[in-house]
């Protein structure tokens, strides 16, 4: 049975996982699940743990298992590229979880082509589609991402994942209509019952930011920031918003940057900034005034 169809018992786990509500995933009660779904749910729990940074726990829990799924989860936990490559080239590359885990490792470590090759072997796995879409987008292959989404929509229109993947692509493609449509996806997600994850809010805010609706974006981000442990991307996008609204040189930005450094000192925004600063300094040295004052 397709675990992503609306009929599934797992819909809540998947929704929680893909809205990054990992605690919800972990606290999900699997006892009532059918025997086929139980291991699937358990895999999600491992992945949620990894996403929460509890890599060691996962590694120790699975160190004894030798099956491909466990090995792929361990590879994900250890961010082990060579193991991922092994798995990708082994006969186990048909397994959905192996594809996702190994694909994630490869994708995250710049093995774009390998990751795509592996993930393309999927058989009706929405997760694989979503991951592919994302990898294409990260590597600026919007055309391929769109193709992936369009193809998946034909057989799985109702899925949250495909909706989200489409929203990602739409945000990249742009234009009022596409932005708006991405916005709707996140808005729907945000207003879904029981949703506490900031992902939807951040997505909503990003879409609004692209739509030029800065006030609404700010409101959504502030809401996301209110939580005890604010979402990293909420912080990052708040910084962006500060700049967009021309308040980039204010106190708030400094504060947010401090917060971001504290939460994720290697965040793209910060790394990029350091790089650009040095780029600026190098570039600026090429010029000087003819006469000293």
């Amino acid at each position: 049975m397709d675990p992503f169809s609306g009929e599934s018992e797992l819909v809540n786990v998947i929704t929680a996982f893909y809205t990054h509500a990992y605690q919800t995933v972990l606290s999900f009660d699997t006892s009532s699940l059918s025997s086929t779904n139980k291991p699937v749910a358990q895999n999600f729990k491992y992945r949620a743990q990894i996403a929460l940074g509890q890599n060691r726990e996962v590694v120790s829990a699975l160190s004894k298992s030798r099956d491909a799924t466990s090995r792929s989860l361990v590879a994900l936990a250890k961010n082990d590229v060579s193991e991922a490559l092994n798995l990708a080239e082994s006969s186990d590359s048909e397994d959905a979880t192996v594809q996702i885990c190994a694909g994630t490792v490869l994708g995250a470590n710049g093995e774009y082509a390998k990751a795509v090759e592996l993930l393309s072997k999927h058989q009706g796995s929405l997760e694989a589609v979503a991951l592919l879409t994302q990898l294409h987008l990260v590597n600026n292959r919007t055309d391929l991402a769109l193709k992936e989404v369009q193809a998946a929509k034909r057989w799985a229109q109702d899925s949250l994942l495909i909706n989200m993947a489409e929203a990602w692509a739409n945000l990249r493609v742009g234009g009022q209509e596409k932005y708006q449509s991405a916005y709707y996806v996140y808005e729907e997600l945000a207003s879904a019952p029981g949703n506490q994850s900031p992902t939807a809010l951040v997505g909503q805010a990003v879409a609004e930011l692209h739509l030029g609706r800065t006030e609404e974006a700010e409101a959504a981000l502030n809401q996301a920031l209110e939580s005890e442990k604010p979402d990293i991307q909420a912080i990052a996008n708040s910084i962006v918003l500060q700049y967009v609204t021309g308040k980039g040189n204010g106190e708030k930005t400094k504060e947010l940057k401090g917060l971001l450094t504290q939460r994720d000192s290697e965040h793209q925004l910060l790394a990029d900034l350091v790089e650009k600063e040095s780029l600026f300094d190098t570039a600026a040295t090429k010029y000087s005034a003819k006469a000293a004052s």
Partner: protein
Amino acid sequence: MASSPSMLTKFESKSSRAKGIAFHPKRPWILVSLHSSTIQLWDYRMGTLIDRFEEHDGPVRGIDFHPTQPLFVSGGDDYKIKVWSYQTRRCLFTLNGHLDYVRTVFFHHELPWILSASDDQTIRIWNWQNRSLICTMTGHNHYAMCAQFHPKEDLIVSASLDQSVRVWDISGLRKKHSAPTSMTFEDQMARANQQQADMFGNTDAVVKFVLEGHDRGVNWVSFHPTLPLIVSAGDDRLIKLWRMSETKAWEVDTCRGHFQNASACLFHPHQDLILSVGEDKTVRVWDLNKRTSVQSFKRENDRFWVVAAHPEINLFAAGHDNGVMVFKLERERPASSLYQNTLFYITKDKHVRSYDFTKNAESPSLLSLRKFGNSWVPPRTLSYNPAERAILVTSPVDSGTYELITLPKDAGGAADPTDMKKGSGTSAVFVARNRFAVFSTSTQNIEIKDLSNSMTKSFKAPTGTTDVVFGGTGCLLCLTPSNVVLYDIQQKKQLAELSVTGVKYVSWSNDGMYAALLSKHNVTIVNKQLEQVSTLHETIRIKSATWDDSGVLLYSTLNHIKYTLLNGDNGIVRTLDQTMYLVKVKARSVYCLDRAAKPRVLTIDPTEYRFKLALVKRNYDEMLQIIKTSSLVGQSIISYLQKKGYPEIALQFVQDPQTRFELAIECGNLEVATEMAKQIDKPKIWTRLGSEALVHGNHQIVEMTYQKLRNFDKLSFLYLCTGDEEKLTRMAKIAEHRGDFVSRFQNALYLGDVESRIQMFKEIDLYPLAYLTAKSHGMTEECETILEMTGLTEDQISMPDVGTGLNIPSAIAPTHKANWPTKEAAHSSFEKALLGEVGGPVDETEPNLLEEDMPVVAAQDKNGLAAEDEEEAAEGWDMGDDIGLEAAGNDSDFVNVDNADVPADSTGPGSSEADLWSRNSPLAADHVASGSFETAMQLLNRQVGAVNFAPLKPRFLEVYQASRTFLTASAGVPAIINYVRRNIDETDSRKVLPLIPRDLESLTTIDLQEGYTAMRTNKLENGVTTFKEILHSLLVNVVSSQSQVDDAKALITKAMEYTLAMSIELERRSLSTSGGEDSLKRQLELSAYFTVPKLDVSHRQLALMAAMRLAFTNKQFSSALSFANRVLANGGAAKLVDQAKKTKTQAERSGSTDAIDIEYDQFADFDICAASFTPIYSGSQSVSCPFDGAKYQTQYKGQVCRMCEVCEIGAAASGLRLWVQGL
């Protein structure tokens, strides 16, 4: 045959057989005449029996209201016709004449006539004013069952058991009875003769047509309200339609369907329909044009005898064996759906229209739904999907159908839908952007379908569900007769259930947080988790509800618009004269659809509920605003406030001292209470105030009340408590004065004044006590005196043990001097807001220099125009007020930077959107946003000779960082980076461009104003920073049109001029004041140069005033005079001008000469070198900054511009590009 699922019954009564019915033309009343001889008057809206009239003997068959007068007429089996007044509730008179049962009676629509039909085979016309019979029509040869006037013409139609229908012409009768004023003798004669002729036959009323066709007796006949048509119902079970012309009448068609005697029939007042009732227990509706059955309704046990139509509204009544029922043929609630500022609705002629609330305009028809459902059944609901611009329409036809239609982009008139998908289901509603739910009562299934109308999932609805409505994204509210269930579609799970009976409609608040569940008589407000927030009951039917943006629910009943707050407080907003379906509230306007599906705007006064809402939310500022700007109705709001525990706020509304006093006591506001007590001045009030003040520990007020009440004892005790010895002494004196010995004694005790006590005892001849007192205090002399006075010796007295004298403890704290820290009177924040409002008109935004109200002359004298004072930057310019923030930018010169094309830099190939930006645009800012700093710098270097990029670093990074957003997707993979565009509508990758923050507009409205403020408030260092920032922001920027390019250039020049001016002044201030003549000379020069840059007039005045003052103090009278003249020429604030005038006169008096010769020629035209701050006279050589146009002495060529700090002075440059056509 189509049968309607249920009749829309509005009212039912239980009684014996109803034979006659009449609607009141205006009021919601019906008269019902019963077989039991009673006539009932019902209010069908409220469902109450208003009155009963019982004077007939036997069944009453005919009944009719007078169209205008408070009268009605009835005819019974007692052969009598009675005319009644429903005001006086009695029978006015009886018309006798018929010789058998009277079947029907009707008033004429304008003449004072009554028409009756009787079993005596006659039809008679009576004049009810003179209570006489004026015409008897004979011709039927069996019972005359029914006779009616034509609604307009002088015609009568009658039906009889002789199987015929007759049409009578009564124009003769009208002529005869019309006003006889202008009648000639001949006419009168003729008339008399005519009347004579009456005796024999019919010249007044003649049979015009006899219509034969029924095979049995005819029970009822009616005219069409406008067309020459007649409908009749007979015992042959047929309904026959007849048409007539001037000369003839003929049968048109027959409606077959009744399977028992047809009792009555009529034409629908507005629609092409016929209604008939019969003894087969059915009410049937027929299409007038096709003569086919449209609807039928069957009662289990009751035969129908009569049917009547309301003359105006869509309402009918039918009488049967056990009473009457009032019903509607169709729902009048227009199907509609609101999205943001647009309402979509279906008109009566089945067109979809929209209404734009921002423009208050109705759109032309977007779509025609002519072919949808049954032509006589309007669509029930409409659901709108903004993402797809599609609508879902449901209709009850064929036990429920729906259609999904995409609205055309442009309202191209009443087109039939081209693309539509249909299906069957009772309810259909959008639940998400691309999903809708269809519910069918018969299967109890809910199906979720996508936009191609294919089912994606299906599940059982909660048992007993009758309707489903939107329940928040991804959820449905399932309505059952006793419950409402919140159902999650995704999880297929009930999330919550609430027991509320009979919910029919649901209205969601604009923010989707709350919903109002409407049932017939209840409104229940729930939150989105379906938890009940409040509920309220109405005795009258609730029709619709809509939410105010602030979270107030407005709902309409049959005759009111009311409001309710979330906490359940409710009230009436306004009355309605007809039913309205509310759709939106915006400020003072309520938008609604009326029964004809026409959008209406009603004006309301939202003050009351806004106020209450503000109160609930403790939004005191708003309350204050409301109090100040509107006149709230007194008493109700006061009692509301009091009830809600806000006496301190109620206090603000009350004028009446008594109430004010009560409220003040209640909220512990003693000041007000005292004030009021003084006004009222009654002992009772003072007593209450006193005890309240005592509780508060406010002894000063207590003292006052005691004084007012002349409560000496308490007063003394109070003084004792507070340690006020002085007043206590005075109390003792008063007591003495009053001759009150007890009081004197008390006071003496309190004071510890032994002498006066002894003195008092002596006065009242209580010598033993006096002696004892003296003795116990060891006052031997006094003892002896007393002994002497009494003529006794010590031995003669037996003394108790005296003990020690009373020792009065002395007061430690001087409590009486001030109140104790009293109980904090409950000054609510509201009161504070109010007091603050009254107290200080402190406008924080205004800089202090405008506040300084120092007389100019005094300031002059004191400061002696001292130069030192000027250096205190923080002090402001102190030149009086009114230096307003005038409109910006009118005297700036343009820097003409020509727009020579720079060849677009080709960068290396890249595939991210950021790379596209730099390829798409030749503008430096776009390159910065794309992260291509090198090319951006190249561009700037070529365009404006930028060489020193360091100051631009923050701007570069600002632009860069505003261009990328981060979107988390799958776990473990880096976030997706997206690129923020300024042309959001653009999808062509060759045209997309980045957003550049701090555009020209924001620089003008925010930064520039900031700079102005810095200038005005004399914060020059900040000002220089601000203006330099403006320069930097403009250097890396884009604009969107040629005119904006000009604006931007004007702003660059302006920023440069201000930077220059401020720099000069700062330079002057940095010079030591004691640096001798050279320094002074330089200072004077700089202060003069300060006036040169092209500042706005108001700011130039500041510079001029400063220069004038400095010059004057230093005896530079000529310069001072020139500055004064310039100030005067500019005009402006009175103080400024006064001061300038004064300076001018003094300077002139002092000889108009300068003590020091400075390099400043007031008559010459010159610029100031931005580096050396020396004049560059016109004609002499200079170089300038290619960006901001600042002028420099030639020796500065090649250096970095002092103003922008970026560009090279005198560099060859093509000019800054901010805009490219076609981008």
